């Protein structure tokens, strides 16, 4: 159990998907104009990452690996299968959210289908493969990575809401400032690298 907590903390803070690997930057920059939508998108990402990671783990070990169902190395199909799982899961999440919470569905709008092309999701699955996690660890990694991404987008949205009232030079306003802020946040998160997750 402690091992899983370690992976959760490590993936959420130390190897933050958004601020250490720059994954999911497109939606991170596009949707971070207000805290409310950022919050919704962050939750959706945690959810999708938490679901797709174990499913992709099962596909990778049970179907694609040499000891799998077909008994041959099918890893060249990995990208296509992973993206298909992600696309269908996002579709499913979209239908569930539409049913359960129409207000969240409306506020997320176009960003929900965009999660399919959010590289944090596919990147998370590919990292999971390259780090050779087992099933439990892949769940912890998915949830932790999603939580880290959620934290990053909510934090930048809050800063961007405040900085709108500051005197930023014209050409730097908006996008340029968002980049520099993210860089500063990345530096702040780098200081968390000194934490030893085994101490928890």
């Amino acid at each position, binding site marked *: 159990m402690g091992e899983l907590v370690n992976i959760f903390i490590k993936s959420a803070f130390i190897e933050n998907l958004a601020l250490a690997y*720059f994954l999911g930057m497109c939606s991170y920059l596009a949707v971070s104009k207000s805290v409310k939508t950022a919050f919704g998108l962050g939750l959706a990402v945690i959810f999708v990452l938490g679901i797709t990671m174990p499913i992709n783990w099962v596909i990778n070990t049970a179907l694609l690996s040499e000891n799998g169902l077909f008994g041959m190395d099918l890893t060249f199909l990995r*990208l296509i299968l992973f993206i*298909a799982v992600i696309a269908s899961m996002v579709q499913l999440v979209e239908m569930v959210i539409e049913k359960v919470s129409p207000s969240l569905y409306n506020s997320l709008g176009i960003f929900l289908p965009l999660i399919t092309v*959010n590289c944090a999701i596919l990147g998370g699955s590919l990292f999971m493969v390259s780090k050779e996690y087992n099933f439990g660890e892949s769940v912890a990694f998915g949830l932790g990575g999603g939580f880290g991404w959620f934290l990053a987008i909510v934090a930048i949205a809050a800063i961007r809401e405040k900085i709108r009232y500051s005197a930023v030079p014209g050409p730097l306003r908006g996008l340029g400032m968002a980049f520099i802020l993210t860089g500063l946040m990345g530096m702040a998160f780098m200081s968390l690298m000194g934490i030893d997750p085994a101490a928890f």
Partner: protein
Amino acid sequence: MADVQVAKKEAAFGFGKKERKLLVDPLNDNNPITVQVLGICSALAVTTLLDKALVMSIAVIFVCAFANLFTSLLRMYIPKQVRMIVQLVIIAFLVTVVELTLKAVDYNIYKELSVFIGLIITNCIIMGRLEAFAMANNPWRSFLDGVGNGIGYGIILIIVAMIREFFGKGSLLGYKILGPSSDFLITIPGYQPNNLMVLFPSAMFVIGVLIWVHRAWNRKLIDIS
């Protein structure tokens, strides 16, 4: 649908003013990275060294051009509801081709780029161009649009990688240029390369400043809101 009909009347393989605009527009006024904010993830991660950025740019130009071409060829036969999945399959196929080719040709670069080659699939530039352009235009113009956007992306990548490698390591493409010891081309005793440039936040700063410079020079892009 109007676009489709207009496109049909024009010559299929001409290269006039409109075609040139398709190639040139993404370099400045409609740059994928600094204006459309697409494809940022890979732009940040692969720009620590110039050779990585070059390989990545070539891969993206290839995938973007051919994904646009194939989608445009198939656009009459793709049902609206499943178009995302069809597009993703086309892109995933092309990326797999790139990945396997790179693995065979240069294994070291392949190892260094690790997951980022696979992540070309989710590079929003490609998806965005397929949705916005290839679904409504003829194959030749879509191909040009793909090449143009790939180059617009590549230029920014190469500029950022040059700045980061030069100031971070004092070298370009692995050739040592500026440094403290005598094996560098220009030797300055006591010179220390800026290690921050190799770390990830610097990519953000460099692109942020690049956007600043770009918008100060091309003032119609300034964000008024």
